[in-house]
């Protein structure tokens, strides 16, 4: 009896903490739920027509009715994002190393980078279609262009942010530039790389949709355009919701990869002194 009482006392703070955590985690869901219900009630109460603002239930039922087609479009957009983002990562990392290798190279490459970045990618998309043909290439290139600049800039900043003591340690060990790069500069750049990746992955969704708006016969951007053309607004809303979900999931995937493989890079109090 006494032992039970002691156990209860020990459990109590734990249980309370778990409850508090659950409560905190459920708040966003509750607020989203309330928003959806209010939306549904407004649309029904004021009898707003579907093509102006569809109710959530209508969005769901019309999207679900075409689930096979919607899934195909989703897959097409994911493919564009994957190739465009992958290409951006593959090109921006070596480019960042190149840019930071010497002031002369930086002075040569930076203006070109800034010039490319200054061009609105939406303006570039139709030109790319002419140049590359009406296939997935222009979409991938637009996605690439949208997300590679923040990557180059953040990784370059990371490679240059190395504390001077680290560099002095390298020099006092007469480390070659290659060793300094691989053993010290690159790991130092990892937190910067991930902040760049988080920006880039979000932008890559934008890039893919922009590409699909201009020239595509599949993808969620195409679906939005074609369904609004026929006033099938609920379907367009469905595509928008899926795009938002893709953005959230991909962003969280980047966060999860950082936590799993580079826990020291995460600004979490457990890894700081």
């Amino acid at each position, binding site marked *: 009896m006494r032992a039970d009482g002691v156990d209860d006392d020990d459990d109590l703070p734990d249980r309370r903490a778990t409850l508090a955590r659950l409560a905190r985690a459920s708040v966003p869901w509750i607020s989203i739920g309330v928003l959806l219900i209010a939306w549904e009630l407004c649309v029904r109460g004021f009898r707003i027509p579907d093509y102006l603002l569809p109710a959530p239930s209508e969005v769901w039922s019309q999207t679900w009715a075409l689930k096979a087609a919607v899934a195909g479009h989703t897959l097409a957009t994911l493919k564009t994002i994957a190739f465009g983002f992958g290409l951006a990562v593959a090109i921006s990392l070596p480019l960042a190393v190149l840019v930071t290798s010497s002031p002369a190279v930086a002075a040569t490459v930076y203006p070109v980078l800034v010039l490319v970045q200054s061009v609105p990618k939406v303006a570039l998309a139709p030109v790319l279609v002419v140049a590359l043909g009406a296939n997935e290439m222009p979409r991938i290139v637009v996605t690439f262009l949208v997300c590679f600049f923040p990557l180059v800039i953040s990784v370059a900043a990371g490679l240059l942010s190395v*504390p001077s*003591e*680290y560099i*002095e*340690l*390298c*020099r*006092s*060990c*007469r*480390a*070659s530039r290659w*060793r*300094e790069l691989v*053993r*010290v500069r690159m*790991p130092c750049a*990892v937190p910067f790389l991930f902040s760049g990746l988080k920006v880039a992955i979000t932008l890559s969704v934008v890039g893919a949709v922009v590409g699909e708006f201009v020239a595509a016969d599949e993808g969620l951007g195409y679906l939005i355009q074609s369904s609004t053309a026929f006033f099938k607004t609920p379907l367009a809303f469905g595509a928008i919701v899926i795009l938002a979900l893709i953005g959230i999931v991909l962003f969280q995937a980047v966060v999860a990869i950082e936590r799993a493989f*580079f826990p*020291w*890079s995460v600004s979490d109090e*457990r*890894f*700081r*002194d």
Partner: protein
Amino acid sequence: MIRLQGISQVFRSRDGARVAALDDVDLSVASEQFACIVGPSGCGKSTLLRLVAGLIAPTRGTIEVGGRRVDGPREDVGIVFQKPTLFPWASVLENVLMPLKLMGRPTASHRQRAMDLLEMVGLGGFETRLPGELSGGMQQRAAICRALIHDPPILLMDEPFGALDALTREEMTLELLSIWQERRKTIVFVTHSITEAVLLADKVVVMSARPGRIVSDLDVALPRPRSFAQEGLPEFQAVAASVRASIFSRRKGGADAR
């Protein structure tokens, strides 16, 4: 062992002005001697260490280590900075082995040496931890192990305990003494603390600021092994007082000159 002759160091500040960090400095530290450099901020103590390490070249003068002129970074020194500057992504053991990796030497035989060093400073069992999981004092111990891993004859320490709390600082001071007792090295140790300097050193070099000059070079003849118990002894107090006096007199003189 270490000999600096007529060293002057001039830096160019951001606005292009010339700043004299060191002015005509002569200093020699004998082999296996423990030398402490004391002085106010901005007296070029850290610059002096970097010159000895060959990380920077002097504007004027020559530096010799072991009879050979220093003309670039050298592998026969170990450096301990004010901050531990361990790599946050590497385990404690990997961090200790880092100099060898940067030098590109095989590390298989050195693993045991690293373990022994960590054991010696009381970090046995922490080999696989990340630096972020260690306290500041433990991190600095690991940094000392890192400086010792390639068994350099010279150890350069730039206010290594400056960022630690007072208790940890005393503990580390004693620890350093016992390490030095065990593995004799030539140590050049920069500090702000007169007590620390007198307790550790064979000789205390007092520097003045702007430009950095050597004011006095005092031998500390207190018996070893030393401990904080000696702090109360008149001999200890006498040395500390003369160090303090030369710092203070120099400051007053500088103010008069202006």
